[in-house]
């Protein structure tokens, strides 16, 4: 029955959608706000997972461990920014270099390729109750976290510092003429963006209870999908809308994937990616025809 999703599959899709919504936020800041194509995310996502698992196993409080993961992500972003701004390496290439290096770094942090987190508290543990199943509780906690982060980011982008970052991406030359240090903005933006992606990785690890060095494969596609799909649903210009759009876009992607898993007549397991892409294209075209053009960069 292609048109139904079990509650488990639906909740799973929403949960993955929320986790990768954080990745979407990070990708939004680098690709859209700063106009900096950043592939570091393929490394910073598993970095967040690795750091949080190792930290929790070492006895740290899971919230603190998640913070460590964010800091690690920020450092990765700073490396990419340094390679680009100081080393004068083109942005895309700089990010690829960092994500390649992170591969080895993650193996070192994990002490191997895969580390499970079977025991140990996560940020979800205190919310576990008999009233409400974990499968429902986790998306709620994630949504709550997402709201807080969006609010913080929104406030940031409305501040002078945040406005300077947005201007850097829109018109770097004019920004410099207005006294904005575009170099500094790239450092801050890269750090912020990859910290968010690493938080996504840390959340993934705590939900799925393991970290793996190959976790990063496909992260950039998922992040971009979230941003692009989201901007179709939220074309309004004020900055808060694309931020919310990252989460909505991510959830739409994961729900589409869940539907694709149900299969359509004639589809084989090989066709999963094709069908997912097709479903999303269909949604985007339908929305486009009804509602209007894709949003400009904000």
């Amino acid at each position, binding site marked *: 029955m292609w048109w139904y999703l079990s509650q488990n599959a639906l909740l799973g899709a929403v949960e993955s959608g929320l986790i990768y919504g954080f990745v979407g936020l990070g990708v939004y800041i680098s690709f859209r706000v700063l106009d900096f194509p950043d592939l570091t995310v393929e490394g910073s996502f598993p970095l967040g997972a690795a750091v949080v698992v190792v930290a929790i196993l070492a006895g740290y409080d899971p919230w603190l461990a998640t913070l460590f993961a964010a800091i690690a992500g920020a450092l990765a972003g700073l490396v990419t920014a340094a390679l680009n701004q100081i080393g004068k390496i083109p942005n895309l290439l700089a990010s690829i270099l960092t994500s390649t290096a992170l591969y080895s770094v993650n193996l070192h942090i994990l002490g191997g390729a895969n580390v499970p987190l079977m025991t140990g508290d996560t940020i979800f543990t205190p919310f576990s109750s008999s009233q409400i199943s974990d499968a429902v509780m986790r998306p709620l906690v994630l949504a709550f976290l997402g709201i807080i982060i969006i609010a913080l980011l929104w406030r940031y982008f409305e501040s002078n510092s945040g406005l300077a970052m947005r201007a850097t991406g829109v018109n770097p030359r004019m920004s410099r003429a207005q006294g904005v240090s575009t170099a500094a903005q790239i450092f801050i933006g890269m750090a912020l963006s990859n910290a968010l992606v690493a938080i996504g990785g840390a959340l993934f690890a705590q939900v*799925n209870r393991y970290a793996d060095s190959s976790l990063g494969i496909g992260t950039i596609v998922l992040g971009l999908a979230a941003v692009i799909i989201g901007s179709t649903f939220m074309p309004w210009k004020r900055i808060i809308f694309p931020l919310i759009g990252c989460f909505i876009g991510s959830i739409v992607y994961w729900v589409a994937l869940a539907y694709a*898993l149900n299969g359509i007549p004639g589809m084989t397991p090989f066709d999963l990616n094709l069908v997912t892409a097709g479903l999303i294209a269909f949604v985007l075209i339908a929305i486009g025809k009804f509602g209007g053009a894709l949003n400009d960069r904000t």
Partner: protein
Amino acid sequence: MRLLILALCGAVLATTPAFAEESQQAVKNQVVAVTSIVEHPALDEVRDGAREALEKAGYQNSNHFKFIYQSAQNRQSTAVQIARKFVGDKVNVIVAIGTPSAQAAVNATSEIPVVFAAVTDPIAAGLMKDPAHPDKNVTGVSDITPVAAHVKFIKELLPNAKKIGYLYNPSETNSVAALKILKEEAAKNGLEVVESTAIQTSQVRNATLALAGKVDAIYITTDNTVVSALETAIMVANENKIPFIAADPASASRGALAAAGVNYHDVGKLTGEIVIRLLKGEKIADIPMEIAPTNDLYINQKTAKLIGYHFPHSVVERATKIIE
């Protein structure tokens, strides 16, 4: 308008669980859901072996039984969604091939039996505490590579060998675990290990080339990355007249000089047999983990001629299969 569409989607999704229940009640199916982290020959053989075992026992796709398969296409996040889907569809047994798929399945359910396959170290992966006594809903078939036996085998094939080259992807747990044992066993047998890594299949050729001239033999275990580019590695080895010894017997059919170890079709068969026991109602606590038998020995005489090598008589006698 956008909001209207969103609202409609929401309404459809909200009501579907109701429909789902109804359709499940209509036909009482037994469903075995199989998932693999990625497609590649050894893992595919596990799936096929399992399916054949089931079919032989009378479990064919019909009104009362379904064998479904989903691949995570090498994305761990997809593996998670697949596991959720299987649990939501209330299948009877989940078969998870490969460590990340197994971890996803075990995390997604504590009720539906999960049978893992092609996982080298289930304890390290957090799947089972005690392989002999399943304490949760998890059991399976481990394909632990008999590295010690392989080292002895290499010494038998090449008594004068000093250095063994090892090709692997450092981010694959199974390969890393095997390397550790390899180093220990090599040391015991007076051999040195030279490592060469490939992070993606596209790097396998260069990784193999890097060993040329430095080693007396090249050895691989069940590394997904290397096995996916096996022909390339074998070609390079043969061009440089280096004996290529693999752990998956199927590799010999693909050109390796010799291969000894786990037959992945057999892993699939064993997995299928565990599934049958579960379908028939046996409790998972009574089904300890199995270790795949490793007594298949394939040799390739064609390759031997190509690189100017003669198999010792003892090996030829023992061989399960000789490829000409």
